[in-house]
């Protein structure tokens, strides 16, 4: 399946791409389109103003994706808190690591193409997911 989002990838889109590949469509292909009106008909758009898989109410797109696909895994929701605060920074969640992720992602998109940013951030999100998974299981920070 093909998925489209806006170029100039930041944390929300990078994390959504990771989530789509991991939980929704393992063979997902991503294209970058600046204007929602230019999205081809057979392509699912996300994180674009005006499309369904986007910000809604207080939610960032990562949270919308979790809701639309009934993903209730608490580890994914812990990751959602990180993405939400790094993206929106409205203090809705307590995610102190969010600021660091925001800086890292913004810096990365200054020096890499969107395709590369997606490629480089996938292991980062996989690792962070694993960290949060162990943290939730242990009830404290893992080693």
């Amino acid at each position, binding site marked *: 399946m093909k998925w489209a989002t*806006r170029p*100039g990838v930041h944390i929300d889109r990078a994390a959504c791409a990771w989530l789509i590949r991991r939980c929704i469509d393992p063979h997902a292909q991503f294209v970058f389109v600046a204007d929602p009106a230019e999205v081809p008909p057979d392509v699912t758009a996300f994180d674009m*103003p*005006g499309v369904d898989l*986007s*910000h*809604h*109410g*207080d939610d960032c797109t990562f949270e919308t994706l979790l809701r639309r696909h009934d993903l209730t895994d608490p580890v994914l929701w812990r990751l959602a808190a990180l993405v939400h605060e790094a993206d929106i*920074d*409205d203090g809705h969640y307590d995610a102190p690591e969010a*600021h660091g992720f925001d800086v890292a992602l913004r810096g990365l998109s200054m020096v890499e193409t969107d395709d590369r940013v997606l490629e480089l951030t996938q292991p980062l999100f996989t690792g962070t997911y694993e960290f949060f998974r162990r943290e939730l299981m242990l009830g404290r920070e893992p080693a």
Partner: protein
Amino acid sequence: MVAQARPGEWVLLNYRMPREPSTPRSAVWRTLRRLGVAQLSDGLVALPADARTREQLDWVAAEVREAAGTAGLWVARPGTLGQERELAAAMAADRAAEYRAVQEHAQVALGLPDVERQRALRRLREELRRIRRRDFFPPAERDAAVAAVEDLAAGTPSPTGAQPATDARAATARGER
């Protein structure tokens, strides 16, 4: 150079929302305040244009439309440099008031017992970070607020007047933008 004397690009959001329900209205208002927009007139706000601010206002526009309102996003240049300076000065004055509040809180907290001082320090650092995110035209009050919070970290007020530590902090603050 002539090119430098031209006003820069701004991203403008015009929006209109139904009076009721009031919840989405106040949510939009809170978001705009967090973003540090300049209010040009009723239902018209502006930010200096870059990829981030454009995206931020794009989301606000979507939020307005979702709440049965109407919104439009524009990229525009102020007609004169003077008009742009006025806009920048108004935004800087808004931030200056916020920085002053941080500075005052920091000075008061300096007299608190250690544990409470540390708690105040964490809160004020976070508050500073949030203000700086919406600070497009840093006023002089910023350096004073940063210095007051760092005094709080050190636990002692620094002597007044220029001294190396203060200068270094100010330079760091300037370089970060």
